[in-house]
C-alpha cells in the first residue's frame, strides 16, 4: 500500500541519495574544509609574524565554528551536487597544499 503522504514530497531514491550526500558533505566535508583552512591561516599568521601560534589557533577555532555552519548552509544552498562536491574537494586540497607549503 502506497501512503498518500508520499504523493507530494516525492521521496524518491535519488532524493534520498542527494540528502545523504549533502549531509556527509556538510558534516565531514565541512569539518575537513574548516580544519584545513583554519590550519593554513594559523600557519600564515604565524609565518608572517602577525601573532603567536597559540593565539592564532584559538582565534581560528572560535571562527571555525561559524565557518563550519556557513559551509553547511552553502552545501544545502548550492543546486548542482557534482559541481559543489568538486569545489569543496578542490578548496580543501588547495588549503592542504598551502598549509604544507608554508609549514
Amino acid at each position, binding site marked *: 500500500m502506497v501512503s498518500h*503522504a508520499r504523493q507530494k514530497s516525492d521521496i524518491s531514491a535519488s532524493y534520498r541519495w542527494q540528502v545523504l550526500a549533502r549531509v556527509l558533505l556538510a558534516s565531514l566535508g565541512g569539518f575537513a574544509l574548516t*580544519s584545513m583552512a583554519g590550519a593554513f591561516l594559523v600557519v600564515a599568521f604565524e609565518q608572517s609574524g602577525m601573532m603567536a601560534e597559540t593565539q592564532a589557533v584559538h582565534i581560528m577555532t572560535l571562527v571555525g565554528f561559524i565557518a563550519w555552519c556557513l559551509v553547511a548552509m552553502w552545501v*544545502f544552498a548550492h543546486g548542482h551536487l557534482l559541481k559543489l562536491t568538486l569545489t569543496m574537494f578542490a578548496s580543501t586540497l588547495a588549503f592542504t597544499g598551502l598549509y604544507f607549503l608554508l609549514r
Partner: protein
Amino acid sequence: MSEQGFQGSFRQSMTWLHTWVGLVLSLVLYFMFITGSFGYFNAEIDHWMKPEQVRMASLPSTQTLAETGLHYLQREAPDAKEYWVTLPSGRHSNSLTVYAELRAPNAAGEGYVYQQLNPITGELASAVRETGGGDALYAMHYALHYMPYEVAIYIVGVATMFMFIALLTGIVIHKKIFVDFFTLRFNKGQRSWLDGHNMSSVLALPFLLMITYSGLIFYTFDYLPSIKVLTMGAGEEVEEAMEAHLYPGSDSIELTGEKASLVNLSAPLAAAESRWPHTPIHYVNVSNPGDSSAVLRFMPKSSGVSRGSEAMAFNGVTGALMSDPPTMPASAVFSDAMMALHEGHFANIWLRWLYFVSGLVGAAMIATGLVLWAKKRRQRLGKRGTAGFGLVLIERSNLGIVVGLPLGVVAYFWANRVLPVDMVGRGEWEMHCLFLVWLASFFHAGLRDLACAWREQVGLLAALSISLPLLNAVTTDVHLVATLREGDWVRAGFDLTAIAFGVALVAVWRVLPGSSSAAVSRRTRRTLRKEADNLAAAANEKVNV
C-alpha cells in the same frame, strides 16, 4: 552561489535546512533549554528542595569563613594541587563551598574533594535530605543523564551546532524581521503557531545566538580540536601551552618539597579588602598548599561580564604581595566574556528572571517549530490522505517532548517532597521519577486519542504545578504562609512561581482544541450571535416597513 538551490530557490533550500536541523535533534535541544533555564535558579531551587536548610541569620567575618573552609580542606585533602573556597554571598548565602584538586585519586577514586559546609560550624551541611537539588537539574543541560560525560558533551555539541545552523538559516529566510517584531495573531490556526515561533525567536535572538555560540565555546578544543592538532600537535604539553597562553599566571608552580604552613590570613586579606572596598571577597585560592612554594589568592566577585575576576596574589608562607598576573589575550577575553554571558553569574535579580524567561522562550521556539511542522504536514495531506508513519510519530512524540518534559520536571519536585526522607539513593530516585514520568508521557501520547492526550497532559501539568505549594505545606513546615511571614523570598518565590505557571497552563488548557470552552467554539458562538442579531435587526426593519 547558484540561483537554483537544492530545493528550488535559495530561500526554499534554506527553509528546508532550517526545518530539518531544527527537527532532527529537537528532543535534545528542548531538553537543554528547559533544564538549562532552571539552572539560572539552581541555588534557589536547591534551597526549596532542602526544606531543612536554615537560613543563616548572620555570618561570621570573611576571615573566619575563609579559615573555616581552608581548615576543612587541610584536614580532608592534605595532598592537593589547589584549594578553592567560595565564600557565601548573595544567592549562595547559605553555604561555604570548598573544593580541592588532588594530586592522586582518593579512596573513592575521585581526583577532587567538593563539599558544601555549614558556614558557622564548618561541618558538612548534612542535616538536609539527600537531593539532587537545583544543581542536578542544571547539570543535565550539558552532561545529560544516564551516560558518560564524554559521550554526553558530544551529543550536546552536535545538537548545539544544529541549533546554530537553525538560527542562521532562520535569520536568512526571514522576510520582514521588523514587522514580525510585534505580530502575534491568536486563533488563526497554523498562522498563530508561525507568529508564536517568529516572536519567540526574533525577540530573543541576541540571547539565542549568544547562548548557542557560547555553548560551543565551553568545549572549544573538544568540539573542534583539528586546527590545534594540525598546527601544534596533541598531548599534555600542547594543552598546557594553550592554557598558559589563554590564562597567563594559571600555570602550575614547581613544588619545592619543603613543608610549610600557610600564612595568617588577616594581613593579606586586609590588603585585598582595601583594594576592592565595594565588592566583597568571593573566592580564596591556595596553590601548592602545605608546600613552601604556596601561593595565596583573593578574588572579589566579578561585577562585569567576565568569569576570571581580578586576583591579588600573596606568597603563601611569608604573605608578601606578588605581582599581578599578565592580562589575558584578546581572544581569551572574548571567549571568557561569552562564557560569562552564558552563565549569567553577574545578573541581578531582574536580569536573572529575564535569563530564565528567555531560556523558556527558546524552548517555546522549539516547541512551536515542532507543532508547526506537524500542522503543515497535516494541511498538505488534505482531508483525503492518510498520514504516514513519520508524521504520526512526530505528532505523537511532539506531545511527549513539549509537555512530557515539564511534567517530568514537576514530578522531580514532587518526588523531592513525597519520597521518604531517609530513603537510600534518594537523590538518584528523584531523577528516576523525572525520566519515568517523561517516558510515561510518551506512552500516553502514543496510545490515547491525540487531542484528549494534549488536554489531559496539559491539565495534569497545571494541576501538579498549582498543587506543588499545597504538597509543600502538607509535607514540610516551610509552607507559603510561613515563608512569606518570615520573608524567605526564595522559597516563597518558588511556590508563587509554581502557582503562576499552573494558572498560565490552565489558560492554555482552556484554549486547546476539544475543550468545552475552546476559543474556536467561542469564536463560532460569537459569529452565531452576530448573525442572530442581524437577523433580528432585519426582521425588525421588515416589521417597521
